[in-house]
Structures are given as structure tokens and as C-alpha cells.
């Protein structure tokens, strides 16, 4: 019925008074603009454009406490307020749909099953910052998302939600669906800007920040798909309503992509502050671990975030609690692995990825990720040498905090965390030239 068979908790969301992002994602008709409108769609955009001032919109989003869902968790309203008020240059809004942090597969569902929600959120954000041409940068492999978004944009023009003089307000707004090159680094906002300009997708040195000098050196806001899809709900129901969801410091709801060794992987919208153990074990979500094995570790926020060990599962999924637990909420991609998983093997998968995706602009990341992959590969293959763990730590120390963009840190943090939590297992692998637990996952 749907292009992607991914599991969601739409039924539960539809029952809830408050959850909203996934309310209609199991309705195959939702992609059609008439149905979207019947479900209350484009009301928020009309309200924002015809009855609110840009500053009022920004204030409302600020007050709602909505934070960026792309990884860094930066407050959305505050980011929008950094756009210079007096600049004569055009302003741009870019929706970041590069979705390539391993474990993350939530933006795709929104684009494929509720594309108008993304357009509506973008339109409101664009108006708030004074942008007349907005872009969505979708990773090139997401052909179906690209088609869906393009079809939805066409409908939105036909119905007068986009184009010249929207709703007779005198405001013109155009939207471009841009297909990217499938590179992880192009999700990093400054690399995305270069990529969208037709350059190689390499990160830029900050400052200047994109809000001051972004696309074509003009003031630019980059926001994640989920962040923008949340915006219409804040405008419709108000910041005070939004804050009744989630926790005091992490308001709202969030989609968690649950993957790995759970019985029911899927995308689940829950309030921030939801219990991780419940997400993994409750029959409405993950349903427990395959083969009823024990959890060994969890990556809570996408492959760049430090591990949680089995004794730490009773944690709230919100920005503060995960930081306290020594990790991060990141993109909300919860990757679970059980007791039969060799930690060196996990890390080899990850470092291979970061080495491949490093844009090569700065030496510590370009060279460091290469060395790390070599050392970790030899340990994994049973050819590790005494002192290799210390060598890895040393290389990590020379990358962390010394790179132009956060990809370098992202590569290092899971490794440091894996050594800290499972040091004995690394040592066993080197001393005995084999895994402590045999990893050999068969597909069915």
C-alpha cells in the first residue's frame, strides 16, 4: 500500500489528544491535497500569512520551545531570529532532507506520507524570515520522496498555497525540490549550502553562520524536515498547547526511529521524555529483543551519539536526560543490539562509514578516520597488536574538537564510548585474536 512498509504508531497517535506528526501517516489518501485540507491542512499557513506578523510567528515558535530535530537540538525560533532585519539581500529557507545518519529514517516517512505538512511548515518558516524562494534538499537516493514532494508542490501551487500573491496577501512564495548527491556530509548545513550551490559538498568554516551568510552568501535558515513539520501544529494550537507535551526543557513530541535487534523496528512518535525501556520492550513499540536475548547496548540518537549500556535503559528520551546519561538525543535514531554482538564489529561498521563520508577538508578527520579504520579492522580480523586500544584513544584525542565541522567528533565519540564501556572486550579481541561473542547475523 505504501512505498515503504515501515511500521508506525499512527493508530495510537490518532487516539491521542496531543501527538500530531503521525496522525495521518497510515492514511494512503493523506498525500492528496484535498484530503490534507479536509484534515485541517494549510489552516496554519493561512492563519500565519493573513493574521500574524513575522515577528509574532518567531515569538510563538520561541515560546513553544520547539528545538531542532536534525541532531543539534538548537531552538528553532531563536535560530530564525538571527536573520538580520536590515539586510537588503534575499533570504532563503532550506529544509534539510539529506537524512543519512545511520539509524535515522523518519524524515522519509513524513515526505512520503504527509508531504503537504512539510510544505506547510516550510511556508510558515519562510514567511517568518522574509524568504520568497525556499528549497528542500532531499538526498538523491530518495527517489520516491522526491517524486512525492514534487507532486505535492505542484498541487500546492494549483491550489494557491504557493506562488504569486498567496491568499491575496501580496506575498510571493516559490518552492524548489532539489535532489542531492547522497552524501552524509551534505546533511551538515554548511556542506549542504555548498552542495546546493553546485559545488563539492564540503563544509564551510564558521563564522559566518548561515543566518548571516548562507546560500549565495545571503541570510539563510536550515531546518530539519521534522522540525518544520512540527511548525503548523504550534501555529494552529499555540505555544502553550505545545508545551503541554514533553518535558519542561524538551517540549513537544518526537519521532524515534527504532532499529536493530528489536522485534518490531519502526518509527514511533512519542512525547519527549518517553522512557527508553518502554520504547524497546512495550508491545506497542519495539516489542522486546529478538530471541528474547539481553540488550548489550543502545545508540540512542543516531550513529554519532555515545552508547548507553544495558543498565542505563531506564532513561527519559529528552535532550537533558540523555546529556546527563553521557549521550545525546541527536536525530532520535535508537539502534539496539543484543548480547551476541561484538563491539569491535559494531565500531568497524561505524568507522568505515565515517571514513567514507569524511569530506577531506581537514587533516585530523581525513587522515584520522583512515587510521582508525585500519587499526580497528586489524583488531576485528584478529590481527590486533598490544597497545592498539591506547593507539585508538590517542588518534581519537587528536581528532576530537580539532575539526572544521562536527563530523570528526561524530566519528570519534562512539569509539571512545565503546572503549570506555567495553574495554575488556577490546583487550580480549586483541589478546585472543577473536571475538568474545561471535557476531554472525543471518538474514531470514
Amino acid at each position, binding site marked *: 500500500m505504501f512505498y*515503504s512498509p515501515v511500521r508506525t504508531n499512527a493508530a495510537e497517535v490518532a487516539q491521542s489528544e496531543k501527538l500530531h506528526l503521525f496522525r495521518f501517516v497510515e492514511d494512503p489518501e493523506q498525500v492528496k491535497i484535498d484530503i490534507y485540507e479536509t484534515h485541517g491542512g494549510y489552516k496554519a499557513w493561512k492563519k500565519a500569512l493573513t493574521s500574524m506578523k513575522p515577528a509574532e510567528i518567531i515569538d510563538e515558535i520561541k515560546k513553544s520551545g520547539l528545538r531542532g530535530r536534525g541532531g543539534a537540538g538548537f531552538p528553532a525560533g531563536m535560530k530564525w531570529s538571527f536573520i538580520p532585519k536590515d539586510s537588503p539581500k534575499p533570504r532563503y529557507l532550506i529544509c534539510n532532507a539529506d537524512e543519512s545518519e545511520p539509524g535515522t529514517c523518519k524524515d522519509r516517512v513524513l515526505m512520503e506520507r504527509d508531504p503537504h505538512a512539510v510544505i506547510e511548515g516550510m511556508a510558515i518558516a519562510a514567511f517568518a524570515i522574509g524568504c520568497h524562494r525556499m528549497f528542500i534538499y532531499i538526498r538523491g537516493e530518495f527517489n520516491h520522496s522526491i517524486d512525492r514532494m514534487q507532486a505535492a508542490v505542484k498541487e500546492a501551487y494549483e491550489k494557491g498555497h504557493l506562488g504569486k500573491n498567496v491568499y491575496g496577501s501580496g506575498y510571493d512564495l516559490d518552492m524548489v525540490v532539489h535532489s542531492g*548527491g547522497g552524501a552524509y556530509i551534505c546533511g551538515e548545513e554548511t556542506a549542504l549550502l555548498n552542495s546546493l550551490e553546485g559545488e563539492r559538498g564540503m563544509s564551510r568554516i564558521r563564522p559566518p553562520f548561515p543566518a548571516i551568510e548562507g546560500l549565495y552568501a545571503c541570510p539563510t535558515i536550515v531546518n530539519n524536515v521534522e522540525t518544520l513539520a512540527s511548525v503548523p501544529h504550534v501555529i494552529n494550537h499555540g505555544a502553550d498547547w505545545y508545551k503541554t507535551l514533553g518535558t519542561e526543557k524538551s517540549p513537544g513530541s518526537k519521532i524515534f526511529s527504532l532499529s536493530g535487534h528489536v522485534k518490531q523496528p519502526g*518509527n514511533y512518535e512519542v512525547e519527549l521524555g518517553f522512557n527508553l525501556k518502554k520504547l524497546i520492550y512495550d508491545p506497542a513499540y519495539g516489542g522486546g529483543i529478538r530471541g528474547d536475548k539481553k540488550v548489550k547496548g543502545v545508540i540512542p540518537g543516531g550513529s554519532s551519539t555515545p552508547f548507553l549500556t544495558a543498565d542505563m535503559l531506564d532513561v527519559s528520551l529528552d535532550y537533558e536526560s540523555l546529556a546527563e546519561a553521557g549521550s545525546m538525543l541527536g536525530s532520535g535514531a535508537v539502534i539496539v543490539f543484543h548480547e551476541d554482538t561484538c563491539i569491535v564489529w559494531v565500531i568497524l561498521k561505524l568507522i568505515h562509514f565515517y571514513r567514507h563520508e569524511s569530506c577531506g577538508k581537514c587533516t585530523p578527520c581525513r587522515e584520522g578516520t583512515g587510521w582508525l579504520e585500519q587499526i580497528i579492522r586489524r583488531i576485528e580480523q584478529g590481527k590486533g597488536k598490544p597497545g592498539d586500544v591506547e593507539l585508538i584513544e590517542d588518534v581519537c584525542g587528536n581528532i576530537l574538537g580539532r575539526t572544521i565541522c562536527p563530523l570528526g567528533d561524530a566519528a570519534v565519540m562512539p569509539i571512545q564510548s565503546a572503549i570506555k564501556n567495553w574495554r575488556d572486550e577490546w583487550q580480549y579481541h586483541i589478546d585472543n585474536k577473536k571475538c568474545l561473542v561471535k557476531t554472525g*547475523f543471518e*538474514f531470514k
Partner: protein
Amino acid sequence: MILNDNSKARIRERVGLYPRHKSAILPALTIAYHQVGHLNDEVYKEIAKIIKVPYVEVAEAATFYTMFPKEPVGKYLIQVCHNISCALLGADSLVEYLEQKLDIKKGETTKDNLFTLVTVECLGSCATAPMMQINQDYYENLTREKVDRILEELRVKG
């Protein structure tokens, strides 16, 4: 001329959407890739002409993105995600299974030029692992049975 009229028209259409022509490079490469199946110098030159940017700028951008094969590949390019979420559910054994079924190694093309098998990084389909992309399409929640069926269908289609 490699690019057909349809591709050229679609590329021209893209150019008009951006404040600067150069932004159309990546969408143009994608259009060309979908038509040709891979990219090469000839394609870069044709794109450069349509977009009106120097050839070297197109080549420079294209070579950054590993999503585009730079050599001819089989009619069906099978890209298996081998990243963590897929690997936890058997992506490595999926690759082995495909190697057996197609009688090639990863990175190779079958003798009849029908299939090329490669591994790629996370494709944003982690909760429906293991998965693979064949040309423009995703195949998710893979099992041996499903893989057999997919390959059979493609073989019949030729």
C-alpha cells in the same frame, strides 16, 4: 550525443529554478545518471553546455558524489546497505547470498551484464532492514524468499 531530448529538456527546466545556474549541476547529474546508468566526461560536457557553466565545474562536483557510478554498470545496479542497522539484521549474509545467487563477488558485474553488486552506506531505511536499492527503487524487509523473487522478476524483464 548521449543525453536524449527528454533529459535535456528536464535539465533546462531545472536551470530556471535557481538564482544561479550552477545550482542545477547536481539535479542535472541525477537526470543524466537515471537515463545513462552512469556518468562520464561526455555527459559532463553535455551538461556543462546546457547549464552554461565550465565543464570542469560539472566534473568537479560529479566526482565528489559516490552515488553516481563513473564506469558502466550492469542493467540493474544492486546496492546493499551494509551499515549498522542493516548489518545487525544480517546485511553481510545478504551480500553473501547475492554473491552466490549471481555467481559474482561484490563489486562485479554478471557476464550477461544484467546485474552489478555493490555495498553502500545507510540509505535511510534502517527500520525496514535489511534492505537494498536496485536502480531507483528500494527493496525493504528483505528475506531470502523476497530476494529470490526480485531477482527472478528482473531476469524475466531482462
